[in-house]
């Protein structure tokens, strides 16, 4: 008998099956198909404008910095300004996400834009979030051809662009959108929920920002 069958048999024997397999199979198939929602905190259940406000407040509490800008066209200038303000080299790492690619980066003549995955030597990386969760100030980032996951973790400064209209109240709504995009039961290879810059409290329980991931997380909220 394979290990797989041995384990599954032991599980079945131990459970003793007080109800028939047919009943259990129906319950399991039903739950997997319907994915019933549980308790959704009231905190994030707000109209869009208030939701965006809450998102920004929560993210700042987690030591992210947030900047609101009216239009996508203004993102490259805001990125260049952020780099100058932090005395960083005028260089970013960025994936080929169409929303990012459509922005006027060439107008920032001094800004070097390196395409593709991060090699670990980038001071700053720029990503586009698929969504935001107001409840906890969390960003939703999906991996894909135009969205390297390494940019979320290797650069010292992570700059994330998010469309205000993509900010939802709660985690479940964000999950539902992913399901809509990829199809039921399917997922992107990596889905990162990011709540603030990296940190550690492992030495004497003292919280320090900038562990292995980015030391700083800067969020550009566009529109809203």
């Amino acid at each position, binding site marked *: 008998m394979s290990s797989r069958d041995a384990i599954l048999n032991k599980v079945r024997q131990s459970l003793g099956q007080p109800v028939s397999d047919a009943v259990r199979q129906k319950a399991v198939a039903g739950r997997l198909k319907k994915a019933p929602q549980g308790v959704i*905190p009231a905190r994030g259940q707000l109209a869009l404008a208030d939701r965006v406000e809450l998102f920004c407040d929560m993210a700042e509490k987690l030591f992210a910095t947030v900047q609101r800008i009216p239009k996508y066209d203004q993102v490259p200038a805001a990125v260049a300004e952020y780099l100058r303000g932090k005395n960083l080299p005028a260089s970013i790492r960025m994936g080929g996400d169409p929303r990012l690619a459509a922005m006027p980066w060439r107008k920032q003549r001094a800004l070097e834009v390196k395409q593709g995955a991060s090699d670990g030597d980038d001071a700053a990386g720029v990503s586009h979030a698929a969504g935001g969760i107001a409840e906890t100030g969390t960003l939703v980032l999906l991996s894909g051809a135009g969205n390297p996951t390494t940019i979320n973790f290797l650069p010292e400064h992570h700059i994330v662009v998010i469309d205000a209209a993509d900010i939802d109240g709660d985690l479940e709504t964000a999950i539902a959108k992913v399901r809509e995009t990829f199809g039921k039961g399917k997922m992107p290879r990596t889905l990162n929920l*990011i*709540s603030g810059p990296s940190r550690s409290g492992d030495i004497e329980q003292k919280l320090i920002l900038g562990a292995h991931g980015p030391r700083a997380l800067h969020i550009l909220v566009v529109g809203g």
Partner: protein
Amino acid sequence: MQITSPTFKQNSAGALADAQLQKALGNVRSGFIDKRRKAVEALPEFEALREQARAIKDHALENLDLYLEAYEAKVKASGGHVHWAETAEDARNIILDICRSAGALTVTKGKSMITEEIALNDFLAENGIRPVETDLGEYIIQLRGEHPSHIIAPAVHLNKEQVEADFRRVHDHLPPGRDLSEPETLLNEARKVLRSAYFEADVGITGANFLVAETGTSIIVTNEGNGDLTQILPKVHVVVASLEKIVPTLEDAAQILRVLARSATGQEMSVYTTLSTGPRRPGDPDGPEEYHVVLLDNGRSAMLGTEFQDMLRCIRCGACMNHCPVYHAVGGHAYGWVYPGPMGAVLTPSLIGVDKAGHLPNASTFCGRCESVCPMKIPLPKMMRHWREREFERGLNPATQRAGLKLWAFLAKRPALYRFATSIAIPMLSLLDRGKGRFGYLPLAGGWTKHRDLPAPERRTFMQQLGSRNTAAKEAAR
């Protein structure tokens, strides 16, 4: 790792006398409890979420075979591999095979208690593969040749001066005059050293907080980002997880995530919650080329259907130990194996045997704080009592203790005799204290009076006092 649970009493005596440890344990008492309380108070739905979380895990456990099959099918559909391991040894060998196929010399590791349980690091090292722990706390204790003393804060037993000494000893390629006086400088140094390890590693090994049957997804939560760098940079990602990590759907994971970080560190969400499904896809610019999941039983299937099934709801948040007066006093290493605190006192006897770990469920004041803060509402004190019963049934506790309990049981089952016996014994005892109200020494109670005084009883028994009160009340009413 060597099991020292059988010498829990001696371990505890050593821990209580260890000044460095006692100083470090102050950080547990002062930090975690307040942070959790504030996070819970800030979420009115917390109690309702606990109920949901419990119901989800109960449902998943009652249908575990079916959810495991559904999960496996989804992992395969996304291009991943599932390996089933009945024992720790099976899991170690499976992982070694994967590492060898990848030609691995260096393996990075995200924080994982399950790899502690199967003693993976020593095994890989014996087989010529260098395991590098990347979580700051895990890295520190790996340098010291120690094991985690807490399931979410593995180096909580250490002070920064000890970490500084270890870094100076091991990072001997760095200038000796450098400043390492603060946690910030220590973290920066670890960050730099570990950056190169992430890129050198051929295989990255992580645990999992959840396995989602609906999508074949594994989920990890971290604050440092080390788990992510461990799993996206090497060409092979191995997830090691025990059977009970299964949840049915993404919505179910979302419910439990809301109670996990709040109970653990008092955060609303951990910084990084990462959902991984299969290997790199066509067109992806990064990510692992292979994705393996090792599903470990190692005694879990035998807990199903028993009075210990509820323990399989545990999500390893650490709240029980953060609130435990015994853990506060002796720390995690005294428990003598992988899992300390109240959850360890219940789980360890299940996994290594009550004959070895019988002291652990006895090391409880039964104050009940662990159960009251457990996000999964696991009845930890009740299960510790179950272990005490099993220990007694199997004759594992000492003869004098058994004789004493038998005598007490004989009297307790005969109330009239009990009252008679106590009505003689109590006044006699109260006369022996010579008016001090306490005993510094008492025959047969030397184990107690060696370390503290035993309070002397009142002059009369409870029943006698109650009787005279009732009489007085009746007379007053007349």
